[in-house]
């Protein structure tokens, strides 16, 4: 997906780009509502899903995963896309003239040069997913021990007046976020060294 978006000049690119990036700018609760309506037990996607697989998405841990994935996907795509855009387009071109088909040029040249950026994007979107609140609470609810995420638990502790507990959770969140950012940053720096020519 990111690679596709890094290419110029194909029809529908703007449409796909907009759809992918939408969760980034919409209120998370709006995305959550849309997902709830789509994947609820009577929703147009939720019903056939239940019929085929026999389990629900809404108000289960699967809802948490779905909400986090949709919300953090734009971040992943964006950083992966810029990773591909930074690869000199002449490199895969030269690989083609050296006998590689388009797929092999991608796997032997473009991907090895972009993978650190892709990985950095993955880490970043993971960190983003940790903090997801708005969409998650709508799709998955806030069922302690089942669909309660760190961000949701924190909110609950504050509501119950247990500021100390909330502060502990905030500390954990900060630690995880800092680790993820540090890792992503380190990956990008290594990558710049490789690309520098």
């Amino acid at each position, binding site marked *: 997906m990111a690679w596709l978006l890094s290419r110029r000049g194909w029809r529908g690119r703007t449409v796909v780009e907009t759809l992918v990036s939408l969760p980034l700018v919409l209120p998370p609760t709006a995305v959550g509502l849309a997902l709830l309506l789509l994947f609820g037990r009577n929703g147009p996607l939720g019903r056939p899903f239940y019929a085929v697989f026999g389990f629900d998405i809404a108000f289960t841990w699967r809802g948490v995963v779905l909400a986090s994935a949709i919300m953090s996907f734009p971040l992943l795509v964006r950083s992966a896309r810029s990773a591909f855009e930074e690869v000199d387009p002449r490199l895969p071109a030269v690989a083609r003239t*050296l006998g590689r088909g388009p797929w092999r040029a991608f796997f032997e040249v473009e991907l090895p040069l972009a993978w650190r950026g892709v990985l950095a994007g993955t880490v970043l979107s993971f960190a983003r997913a940790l903090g997801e609140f708005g969409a998650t609470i709508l799709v998955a609810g806030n069922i302690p021990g089942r669909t309660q995420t760190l961000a949701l638990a924190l909110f609950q502790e504050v509501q119950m007046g247990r500021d100390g507990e909330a502060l502990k959770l905030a500390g954990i969140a900060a630690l995880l976020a800092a680790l993820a950012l540090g890792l992503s940053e380190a990956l990008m720096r290594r990558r710049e060294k490789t690309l520098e020519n």
Partner: protein
Amino acid sequence: MSDFFSLDLTLRQGRFVLHVAARLGETAAVVGPSGAGKTSLLEAIAGLRRADGRIAVGGEVLQDSAAGVFLPPERRRLGYVPQDGALFPHLSVLRNLTFGRTRRRDPDGGTHLEALVALLDLGQLLTRYPRHLSGGERRRVALGRALLAHPRLLLLDEPTAGLDPVRARKALAGIRRVHAELGVPLLVVTHQPQEALALASEVLLLDGGAVRAVGPARQVLLAPGILAQEGGRRWENYVRAIIVRHHPAGGSTEVRLDGGEAVTIPHTPDLAEGADLLLSIDAEDLLLATAPPVGLSARNAVAGRVDELIPVGSSVYARVGPWLAHLTPAAVAELGLAAGSPVWLVAKTHSWRVVA
């Protein structure tokens, strides 16, 4: 003019349209100012950019839009060497070199890695990575990488761009050596007429989206218009020659130029008698005399006739056969030079440089 390479292409880039139709030999150059579409043309030939028309190399059709033929780049067997080499930054020099070799079986025993490494002097570089190479080294590696894939034609994009004059001459020498040893045909794209003269026997001149001239390199490139475009830049005369004999005591070597003239150059013992070489001399270093020179330390005097006087900026180039000599308008007036005047071209032994 040979039929090795035939081209009839139309490229479109936004509003810019370039149409090129030509038949060229085994060493050809595309010359034109920057923005003339030279690199795009090279990419179209390599199959990396869509263009309408027909391309045939060595009797094989690579593309013929009318017949619905379009070989993808990986099946064209063209050795594309982009401007600064475009080496794969994540691979060592050795793995860059062998990148194109792995999949293509060599039909006739051809080039071996070791021979090429020796020819291009890459032995010290094999374990290094592109970011630790100089500009000239990168280009040599890129040239080797293209050659190891056994191309039917090398496509060189501005092979000396960004190199200082000494390194540029070395790079040209390297390309000539490769061509002489391996016999791989060349198509060079350049904005420098001299580079085309040094590498190619035929030239296609591009300007304003069209072919301005096609023909033997000297004939096309010594036209007054080209020189005017070159502006005040130094003009180097390139000429091919054969070693006649060495004079170690005199510190000189006698050569015969391809026009038959005998000339003395600095002693070059590393080349055997009878060896072929490329010489260059700056237009600034060629003196004109209206009488055979006597009592002069310069050892070379060649008789000729002024074909034309080409004013460029505040100076004048006199074209004498294939030679250009740089003069001041005052000197032209004092000597009473005009087209048709008989002259002697005079040069010091040490004004000659051995390019390759």
